[in-house]
């Protein structure tokens, strides 16, 4: 049984700016299955963020049809269909880590005992058990970003949208977090949309790689990964991985030759 969680049918998204219209997305077609790990990759300005925000109903397409969990994106947002992770952790300095993770739960009206149980569970999931009482400034950048992932997971949305979540972190921390994220994805079976501009990151994580190119922002290639779901870090040295990375790089290059 394959259920489409997200479908985009010929969506355009044009920003009206003082310098005239900016075509952030043009003719975007996409289907994402339940449980997919989808990476969006492309040079900056190709509309990755805009596409993710449109799925999250933080932007509205100017044309085309977009559906999330069978609803229009805004209905899905109101039904709390997804958790969103930004590049910066965005934790409140005046709340503890547990308080931050519990914030969406408070807003959604979860009972207190339930909140505590959920906070403990997701902190454990991102390997931050025991840090609930700490304040954000007492944690490293990588730990803060894990806390923000825990916050996005706390209310059991089955879609996780992440916009360059590890972009601001150094490579070593990033590797560890990527491994942990894959582990988390396998455990929870969530559908993940993940924006990146790193080829190895996209190839390592994804079941589906969406290659995009700018002016106007569009999808130039969608690659289904042949890699197994069990992926130790050293899979990156296998010929399959290298071939896939090459294919992504080719896709990016083709996108560029348009202009």
């Amino acid at each position: 049984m394959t259920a489409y969680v997200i479908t985009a049918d010929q969506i355009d998204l044009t920003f009206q700016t003082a310098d005239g219209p900016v075509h952030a997305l043009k003719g975007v077609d996409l289907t994402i299955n339940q449980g997919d790990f989808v990476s969006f990759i492309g040079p900056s300005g190709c509309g990755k963020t805009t596409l993710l925000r449109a799925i999250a109903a933080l932007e509205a397409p100017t044309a085309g049809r977009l559906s999330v969990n069978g609803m229009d994106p805004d209905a899905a947002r109101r039904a709390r269909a997804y958790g969103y992770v930004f590049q910066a952790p965005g934790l409140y300095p005046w709340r503890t880590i547990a308080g931050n993770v519990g914030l969406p739960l408070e807003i959604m009206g979860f009972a207190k005992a339930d909140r505590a149980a959920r906070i403990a569970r997701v902190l454990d999931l991102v390997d931050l058990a025991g840090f609930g009482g700490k304040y954000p400034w007492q944690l490293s950048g990588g730990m803060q970003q894990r806390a923000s992932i825990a916050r996005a997971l706390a209310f059991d949305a089955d879609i996780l949208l992440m916009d360059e979540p590890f972009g601001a972190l150094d490579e070593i921390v990033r590797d560890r977090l990527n491994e942990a994220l894959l582990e988390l994805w396998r455990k929870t079976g969530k559908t993940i949309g993940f924006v990146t501009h790193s080829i190895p990151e996209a190839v390592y994580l994804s079941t589906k790689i969406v290659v995009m190119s700018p002016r106007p922002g569009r999808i130039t290639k969608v690659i289904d990964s042949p890699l197994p779901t069990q992926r130790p870090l050293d899979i990156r040295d296998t010929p399959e991985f290298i071939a896939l990375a090459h294919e992504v790089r080719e896709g990016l290059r083709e996108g560029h030759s348009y202009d």
Partner: protein
Amino acid sequence: MRNTLPVLTVLLAVVAIWYVAAIGMNSTWVRDQAARSETVLGMGEFVRQTLSLDRPVLPAPHQVAAGLWDGVFGQKITSKRSLVWHGWITLSATLAGFAIGSLAGIGLAVGIVHDRAMNQSVMPWAVASQTVPILAIAPMVIVVFASAGITGLLPKAIIAAWLSFFPVLVGMVKGLRTADAMQLDLMRSWNASRSQVFWRLRLPSSMPYLFASLKVAVAAALVGTIVGELPAGASAGLGARLLSGSYYGQTVQIWAALFVAAALAAGLVFLIGWIERLALRRMGLAR
């Protein structure tokens, strides 16, 4: 205490300049007196007299200090000659006006941030209210309230509030809008209501702006209260003390009252600064 030396140096310089100015400004009167009684004053005697006049143009620092000491410690604090009593009258009206003004400023800012119509309509009026000289408004407020039989603390507190709501309004409009786009997007992704966004995000983020504006507001409230005590008829408070001092040429009394007012203002601003440091440190917002 590396600051002590420069601070002391400046203080000494101020006192020295003050003495020189006192001698200069009071010299005419001393010279006229001497001419009238046809005595010739030696230099030392001349200086001594300029610094010990009953009603000097500019009292010397030690005269003001003596006046202050007498006003603060030399009187029963229930006496009408006590600066503590007058100070308390002024302080209580200041605090009441500060409270009213701050709440009004915060309330209006909340309205402006949440409501388009208020955003466009309130600010011009608020600005206009501050361009009218407070000296023109104060007597009207006093008279209007007096005609309704209300005197004492409330009319003065209203004038204090008139001056102190404005900095709080401006600071809080900025403060309530300081939460960044990403934080607001997160709230939107959780489908948070406006009141949830306000209490959990906008209000806490605005705290640094609130405290900064409260410091300005409390000093303004004190000024407003003193101005409210100036219109004829007021017999209590530092403003009344200033006014009666100027009626009777009691310059020492004026200066003593001024110093008490300055000390009150400094104390209030310091107190708010102290609460600010505690609160912002606890909130992780201190820089």
